[in-house]
């Protein structure tokens, strides 16, 4: 082995530190726009929301008096708010499972290798291009009791005069149906992407083994699709907690608060009643609700997920 040459000092620490500082600065520069924007429009307002939720506010949204958890206590006793929670939860239960299951069926069909399948894929994903406002206006017309197509069709079967959006018993379901329709495009597109990510040789080996379609679906397709299903369910859950547009256009939270879901309730409290403190308290509860749901999803849902 070569004899060591003159042994020099160990690596000069200052130079290295200086370089590290430069790299850090450069990194910060690249990140700066995002960090600033997140701070101004996400972190700060989130904290401010929490802050406001402990205050009574004036009409400009300035905190006037510290009230502690009174906003929350009041909310939890308030029938209107409890109704709004109930409406939100029901809405979530009506829309999420149905959207995912329907979109999954569509995606499974659209994943078959057939002539012209591209056209069907485009059809099924089309509602993703539909805005909430446009969709709601269309559904509003379809639900119209006298001239809407739905009652027209039902009248052929002798059912008449269903007040889709005015009957407190049906309104939430009507809104849910239109929401499911709006969700299908996005959910379908993601699930189809997931299906196409599955290695085709796995299907081929299942084919060679000669298993039936349903067996293959249960044992190959669904397990391999589970990360996508998990993702799509989580996103849909979060999404449905945030529903606003269709409520605003279709029912305005009515009738009798039957569709007064939480975001609509926040909106009304803050921007119609100018009760920012109470609205902030609701926003904080919404934040925690979503946090908990996401957490539960990850805790219990992810166990069933098979990552490839």
């Amino acid at each position, binding site marked *: 082995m070569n004899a060591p040459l003159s042994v020099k000092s160990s690596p000069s620490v200052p130079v290295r530190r200086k370089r590290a500082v430069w790299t850090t600065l*450069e990194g910060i520069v690249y990140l700066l726009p995002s960090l600033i924007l997140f701070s101004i429009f996400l972190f700060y307002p989130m904290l401010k929301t929490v802050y406001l939720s402990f205050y009574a506010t004036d009409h*400009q949204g300035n905190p006037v008096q510290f009230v502690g958890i009174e906003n929350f206590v009041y909310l939890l006793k308030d029938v209107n708010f409890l109704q709004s929670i109930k409406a939100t939860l029901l809405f979530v239960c009506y829309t999420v499972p149905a959207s995912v299951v329907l979109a999954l069926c569509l995606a499974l069909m659209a994943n078959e290798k057939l002539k012209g399948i591209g056209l069907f894929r485009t059809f099924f994903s089309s509602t*993703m291009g539909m805005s909430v406002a446009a969709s709601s206006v269309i559904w509003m*017309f379809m639900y119209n009791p006298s001239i809407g*197509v739905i009652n027209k069709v039902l009248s052929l079967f002798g059912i008449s005069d269903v007040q889709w959006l005015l009957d407190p018993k049906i309104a939430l379901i009507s809104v849910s149906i239109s929401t499911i329709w709006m969700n299908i495009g996005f959910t379908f597109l993601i699930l189809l*992407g997931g299906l196409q990510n599955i290695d085709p040789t796995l299907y081929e080996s299942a084919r060679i083994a000669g298993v039936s379609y349903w067996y293959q679906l249960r044992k190959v397709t669904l397990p391999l699709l589970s990360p996508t299903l998990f993702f799509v369910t989580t996103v849909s859950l979060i999404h449905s907690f945030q529903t606003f547009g269709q409520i605003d256009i279709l029912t305005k939270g009515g009738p009798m608060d039957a569709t007064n879901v939480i975001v609509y309730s926040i909106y009304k409290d803050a921007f119609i009643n100018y009760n920012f403190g109470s609205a902030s308290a609701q926003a904080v509860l*919404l934040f925690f609700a979503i946090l908990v749901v996401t957490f539960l999803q990850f805790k219990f849902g992810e166990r069933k997920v098979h990552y490839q």
Partner: protein
Amino acid sequence: MNVLRTFLLYALLVICSVVVLFPIVYAFLISFMDGAEVLQGHIWPQKFTMKNYVAAFQKVPLFEYLFNSFIVSFIVMLGQLIISSLAAFAFVFLKFKGRDVLFFLCIATMLIPWEATMIPNFLTVQKLGWLNSYLGLTVPFFASAFGIFLLRQHFKTIPLELYEAAQVSGVGRFRFFWNIVLPLSRTSLITLGVYSFLTTWNMYLWPLLVTNNDRVRTVQIGLKQMQSQEISTEWGVVMAAVIVVILPTLLLLFVGQKHLQKGLMQGAIK
């Protein structure tokens, strides 16, 4: 695959398509009917008339709304692409202390529902004097955790050796970012672009809060206005407006569908 199965599949596909597409086609047909026919509850117009479209553009400033929506969506798209790609680049190619903490912070923002922050945001925008301006409609949406995450996942597939080769030959970081990383990530940039354009175009609650005049109002709010004002009885006109509003996004979706289908998942999984 046997013939029966193929036949059944096609039948199912057609039935599902009819159900899914019905509301859109229905709106399309209504938009060609005159008022009397709409009230009779027809599905197929007896004669097609363009009057509703003309009326839609005359009775409300639909052109301005469209223009506003286009500008706002385009600016947000551009802003998200630039800002997210810069951040994603730093997260993948720059190694520095605290990077992972910052990344975690960015991802954590996905957990904050935007609606929970809208009250202070509204107050901020009001204080900045950005109500009824493009600034107020666009700037709050420039930073997107989803965009950063999506692009980061894609940047990570670029072989590190390319970066090292650039380093050895003395190519600066920004030049590497601009000339190598961005061109190589065209697909995900398109995905993100289409996605952010679509979501901004379809945005409803925020424009509702921060606009109250026609100069900056977007089409979605315009639709709500139409529907809730007196012309709401003229369903044909409203539907004509609806068709005009959904046309751009539907076209964009059809063009970008393949990208979205592949790209959106990439951001989510792996």
